[in-house]
């Protein structure tokens, strides 16, 4: 481990020689991690490199097998998250832990002695934090009415109120628009200037370069290096994370000239069971051999769009034309038969598309079994297929008889995608295919998609990372609150434009002019 230049700095906490093993696997192998007061420290590493384990040790969720934690120079033993909070360590998780029907203020004070504080005192306290760090919050608002970034603000104030001087943020930007990210960064910088220490976990290296002071890279449970951000480049960081040189640019094979229109969606609208409009007047077309990206904040109607095309949800209004045939109202099985494949990866990865307790072979069978003749399952051929998918996609599993619930997120995603691609679809709908995946796995998936594109498959790619959307897709459609705010050429658009459209500013194709609505 290289020495840092901040020799005189005062460490807020340091973790020394932390070892934590699960069974035979060393998740953390003598990891050293030290964060100074008043700095933003990035913690980088691929999936499975031990970041989350390390942070779980810091927050008292796991007991380390060996190693010590010092906070403000004093050795501490964390037996539960309570001990860690008492030492001023606050975690802001990627998935918020808020009670939806309660107000922001109630969520902030829940479980603390301050619960009996007078309402106005509470609100004043919250506003004080908000003003101090430049955050915006309405303490009286019910949590379910808050936007994602407001919820995040509530989480941050919650840990600040509990006296946190050390904040750990786990992928805080994954769900934010570019504008909200900028705002979050300015809040974090203010906290740093106030002497707080921030551990920033992210997969997005540009953000790390932009925001952080120092960085620690973990690889396979070992701390590879800690260095100043100013001393490294993005490329060097990736090499440190991956351990080998990797070609970063995503290939975008050219779109073939004789495009055949594959999917046409005309004026599609949908209201959910509660009568809320989820999609309104969606119209677009998609050709074979083209990747149409869909950008938008979480919950802008992506899920409904996918499910309606796949026939899982009934279309409210409008038509879906697939290869010249109206498939609106067809059963999911009829649509599958026609060659539409959907791999939708929900937040919990297992909610739809896979059966958690079944093994890989049985999950591959999910899309095949209906087309087998007779009533008896023929599993031998499926096993062969499963082995092939495991091999082709480098799925790490003890065997194809391993329950998918026990696989890691990346491997689960590969199982779904592998199965869908194996069906030789004409239209492939894929949502959040690389969610939470490390760089290596993500690129495997981009390659797979490109391969399909070159074979002439039409691909609807619902994505989160704008950089990826802009590099991988041919066109990008932006959804905001169930409406299309623009369809743009991915080669020429900018992140700022996409960000504006994601937050509701309509941008009309071709003219390229933003019109505020």
């Amino acid at each position, binding site marked *: 481990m290289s020495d840092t230049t901040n020799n005189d700095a005062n460490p807020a906490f340091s973790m020394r020689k932390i070892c934590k093993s699960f069974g035979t696997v060393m*998740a953390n192998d003598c990891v050293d991690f030290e964060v100074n007061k008043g700095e933003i420290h990035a913690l980088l590493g691929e999936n499975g490199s031990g970041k989350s384990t390390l942070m779980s040790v810091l927050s008292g969720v796991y*007991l380390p097998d060996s190693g010590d934690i010092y906070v403000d120079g004093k050795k501490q033993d964390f037996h539960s998250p309570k001990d860690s909070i008492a030492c001023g360590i606050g975690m802001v998780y990627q998935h918020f832990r808020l009670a939806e029907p309660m107000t922001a203020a109630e969520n902030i004070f829940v479980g603390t002695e301050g619960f009996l504080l007078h309402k106005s005192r509470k609100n004043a306290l919250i506003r004080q934090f908000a003003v101090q760090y430049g955050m915006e919050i309405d303490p009286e608002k019910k949590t379910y009415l808050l936007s994602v970034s407001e919820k995040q603000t509530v989480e941050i104030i919650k840990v600040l109120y509990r006296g946190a001087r050390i904040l750990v943020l786990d992928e805080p930007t994954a769900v934010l628009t570019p504008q909200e990210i900028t705002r979050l960064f300015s809040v974090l910088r203010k906290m740093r200037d106030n002497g707080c220490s921030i551990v920033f976990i992210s997969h997005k290296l540009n953000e790390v370069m932009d925001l952080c002071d120092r960085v620690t890279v973990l690889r396979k449970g070992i701390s590879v290096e800690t260095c100043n951000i100013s001393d490294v480049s993005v490329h060097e960081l990736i090499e440190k994370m991956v351990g080998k040189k990797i070609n970063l640019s995503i290939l975008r094979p050219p779109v073939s000239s004789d495009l055949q229109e594959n999917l046409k969606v005309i004026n599609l609208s949908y209201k959910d069971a509660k009568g809320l409009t989820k999609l309104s007047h969606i119209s677009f077309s998609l050709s074979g051999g083209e990747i149409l990206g869909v950008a938008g904040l979480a919950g802008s109607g992506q899920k409904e769009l996918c499910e309606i095309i796949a026939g*899982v949800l009934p279309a409210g209004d409008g038509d879906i034309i697939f290869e010249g045939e109206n498939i609106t109202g067809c059963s999911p099985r009829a649509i599958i038969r026609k060659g539409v494949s959907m791999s939708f990866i929900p937040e919990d990865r297992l909610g*739809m598309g896979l*059966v958690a307790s079944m093994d890989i072979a049985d999950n591959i069978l999910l899309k095949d079994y209906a087309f087998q003749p007779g009533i008896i399952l023929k599993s031998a051929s499926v096993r062969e297929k499963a082995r092939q998918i495991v091999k082709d996609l*480098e799925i*790490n599993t*003890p065997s194809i008889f391993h329950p998918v619930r026990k696989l890691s997120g990346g491997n689960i995603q590969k199982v779904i995608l592998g199965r869908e691609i194996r069906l030789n679809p004409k239209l492939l709908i894929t949502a959040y295919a690389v969610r939470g995946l490390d760089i290596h796995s993500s690129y495997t998936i981009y390659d797979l998609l490109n391969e399909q594109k070159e074979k002439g498959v039409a691909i609807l790619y619902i994505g989160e990372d704008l950089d990826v959307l802009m590099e991988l897709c041919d066109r990008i459609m932006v959804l905001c609150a169930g409406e299309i705010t623009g369809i743009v050429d991915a080669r020429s658009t900018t992140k700022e434009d996409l960000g504006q459209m994601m937050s509701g500013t309509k941008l009309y194709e071709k003219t390229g002019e933003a019109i505020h609505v």
Partner: protein
Amino acid sequence: MFRIVKNDNLPRWKAIIFRICAILFGFVLSGIVIAALGFPVFETFRFMFAGAFGSEILIQNTISFAIPLAITALGLSVAFRMRFWNIGGEGQMIFGAIAATFVSLQMPDDTSGFILIPLMLLAGMIGGAIWGIIPGIFRVYFHSNETLFTLMMNYIAICLVNYLYNDVWKDPAKHGFSGIKAIEAQAHLPKLFGVQIGFLIALVLAGALYLMINKTKFGYEIRVVGESEPTANYAGMNVKWIMLLGILLSGGIVGLAGAVQLNGSAFALADGITGGAGFTAIVIAWLSNLSAPLIIVVAILFGALKTGATAIQMYPGVPSSVGSVMQGLLLFSVIGGEFFLKYRIVFSGKAAHFFRRKEVISSEEDEKFISDDWNHPNSREESSEQEGEK
């Protein structure tokens, strides 16, 4: 001091040993209770065992107790696989028996058994299926709570039997006493090895269900629907139809149990015809983890407990309720043991020093980080081992 952590990857053989230990623990507990009551422990156990398996007749008794339990549990297990909490075993059995009785009352007295028995069994299946599909339709189309619905259907069936017993089907030959005419002698199920052939029906059914669940498309669909309805929907399955068919099958099998009970041992319809099998079968289905072959084994165990309990009354002073106490304690330790199969307790603080070395198995969350290590040398080693096992 301690926390409870999810425990996900216990090897199969360990889990089996664990369950056997839980049963032994149940016997030890019962022994303590028996001793505390002032009875000789080993003598009582010996008497119980001898009472259940001691002679040919006793074994036959044990098995005839086990027959309705096994068939009903097999039927319920189909519904439970779809997470349709069918608590209506009693009602479906009774309605099956009502339907079978209806056939028997309609047919001329001298109808051959070759016609009567299959017809009555078939009627039993249809009756049970009808009683099951009513809550099924409400569940599938109106999302009503099937647990309460099926439970209430039990009481309706019991009241219906009493009505038939005391009024509509009251046998005039009984000179004013209530009662339904017993089925004709040729409708009695034939015996094999001294036991009514209901046990053959149970065995065949167990085999057929095992194959259906594991080897057929419909069984696969039932398993997927039970695990995740959204996934089933996504894969193009007609979830409503699969549910309804599954419930029909479940109710039908339970109704068959009612008919077998009628034709095999009760011979006349009355409200006590089930002997509580509809409820006991719920426990049996769960104790056997919904696996058809295991249901047979557990049902025999329950049959043995019942005949054994009758036998210990012959030992001076031991009440037969000791048998019920044992049943309860066995259930307690087996079901309680399931908790320790799924979770483990992690000690922290001072206690941790004693237990830390044992902390090997990972929790669900840990799992994520481990298996994410896509080319960790250790995880590869593990894989080849497990593949070998398969």
